[in-house]
């Protein structure tokens, strides 16, 4: 009986680590389909990581210990985050350690370390990227917190598994406030994970970079870990979105059986596939915003989330 939660927990973490790069590859594939190009293999991210691990790390002379430790911290916090997001089951032993707000804190930790490491070496582009990242993060965090807040209003708890549970077990109803916050969440996702329209993940023009600029100084295993962490971040965000807005298919509190657990795997895969297509679509039809317009973009997200809150308070839905 008590094996299932631990099994769920382990599966979730392993799935996150294993599947995250595949998710990235899938999005690239979808984008290529939409743009009538032929994409590289969806296993390319794995080969890239593998290649990087076999290279020799080169560090700048001025690099401090922070620079060397940051990738491990970032990767570790992403894995911790994956542990408390209910992507497959809602009864997670680690979920008692942190609720959604702490989750946001974990993501913030990762962001802070990446930025500090980028500034550590003292290059111009690193600092540029770090400052932009902090600006985006500073504006995105309130929006994300507001989204979680509205979702928690419906289930009276800020622990992500409980929110999922509440939504999954209730009879189906239209929640306009959740609709608003879902849109807000998508906007935050795009901003935080450096996707178009906020940042182009495939760019090589340093002046337009936000996230990539911070990784310019890294090499070999450090770079591999950072790239993996970025992929994990996207995976985590996608799973947070599923947990908040489409939690059906997850092994709920009542149904803690092996059957439910193994049934949730293909459902998660299907959700990820759909999310990948959706993201690729958004990226194809949007143009990248100029950097000074990014605050407007995030202000819209925040406003939508607050609107969702107000609508919830008024209509009680």
């Amino acid at each position: 009986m008590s094996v299932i939660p631990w099994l769920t927990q382990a599966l979730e973490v392993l799935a996150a680590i294993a599947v995250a790069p595949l998710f990235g590859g899938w999005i690239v594939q979808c984008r290529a389909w939409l743009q009538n190009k032929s994409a590289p293999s969806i296993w390319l991210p794995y080969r890239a990581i593998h290649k990087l691990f076999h290279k020799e790390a080169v560090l700048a002379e001025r690099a401090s210990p922070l620079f060397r430790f940051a990738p491990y911290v970032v990767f570790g916090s992403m894995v911790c985050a994956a542990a408390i997001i209910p992507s497959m089951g809602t009864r997670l032993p680690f979920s008692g350690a942190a609720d959604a707000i702490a989750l946001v804190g974990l993501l913030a930790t990762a962001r802070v370390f990446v930025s500090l490491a980028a500034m550590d070496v003292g290059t111009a582009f690193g600092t540029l990227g770090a400052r932009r990242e902090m600006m985006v993060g500073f504006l995105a965090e309130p929006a994300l917190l507001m989204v979680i807040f509205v979702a928690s209003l419906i289930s009276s708890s800020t622990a992500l598994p409980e929110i999922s549970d509440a939504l999954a077990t209730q009879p189906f109803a239209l929640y306009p406030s959740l609709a608003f916050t879902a849109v807000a969440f998508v906007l935050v996702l795009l901003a935080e994970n450096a996707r178009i329209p906020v940042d182009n993940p495939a760019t090589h023009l340093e002046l337009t970079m936000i996230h990539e600029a911070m990784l310019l100084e890294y090499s070999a295993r450090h770079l591999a870990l950072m790239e993996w962490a970025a992929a994990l971040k996207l995976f985590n965000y996608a799973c947070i979105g599923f947990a908040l807005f489409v939690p059906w298919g997850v092994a709920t509190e009542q149904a803690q059986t092996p059957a439910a657990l193994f049934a949730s795997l293909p459902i998660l895969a299907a959700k990820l596939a759909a999310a990948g297509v959706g993201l690729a679509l958004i990226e194809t039809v949007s143009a990248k915003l100029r950097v000074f317009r990014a605050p407007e973009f995030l202000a819209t997200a925040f406003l939508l989330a607050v609107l969702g809150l107000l609508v919830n308070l008024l209509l009680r839905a």
Partner: protein
Amino acid sequence: MSELPFDLQILNALAALFLLLAFAMLAQRRVVALVSLLAFQGALLCAATLLLAHRTGQWHLYFSALLTLALKVVFLPWLLRRLIRRLGVYWDSEPLINTTATMLLGLLVVIFSFGLAQPIAALASTATRNAIGIAVAVVLLAFLTMITRRKAMSQVVGFLSMENGLFFGAMSATYGMPMIVELGVALDVLVAMLVLGVFFFQIREQFDSLDLHHLESLKEEQ
């Protein structure tokens, strides 16, 4: 929450969408897009009236929905688009305060109107009484749209959006006004728009533009 019957849930969703549209109008700068948003608002109003008619079985609501459809979704947007084409006013200039500040102000306005509508909603006996706050919010947001614009056409669209909000309020508080009043109001709106059409041509003839900057010269010293 989820104990509401399904059609009431849809009505709530329509109301929320109505509010979202009012916000979208606040941020929109293309005049053609404003008119499309207005038409969409009218369509929402029509859908809500139909749902309410189906729920309460009152015949005059069906007629009212038809009137809304004919006037607010078909005729008025067509008239406005024709005016836009003939006058060539496709863009609005930058609003008086920047977009983000306008949106934040709009948010404050929404909070204020929700508070204002509480006592009314408490007294109402209709099933949709919660949406009264949204109606008041839309009216005030439309008012905000009007005062932050410089082009005459955007101000007119804001004015029509205000009327939409008032109608939604009437519907959610009292299941619509008596038929004769609704007909009268519709007639008034129609005539107002026709008058406006003539007016815009006169303004354009005189000033060669529909920027309201030109209409600010009458001061007290005259």
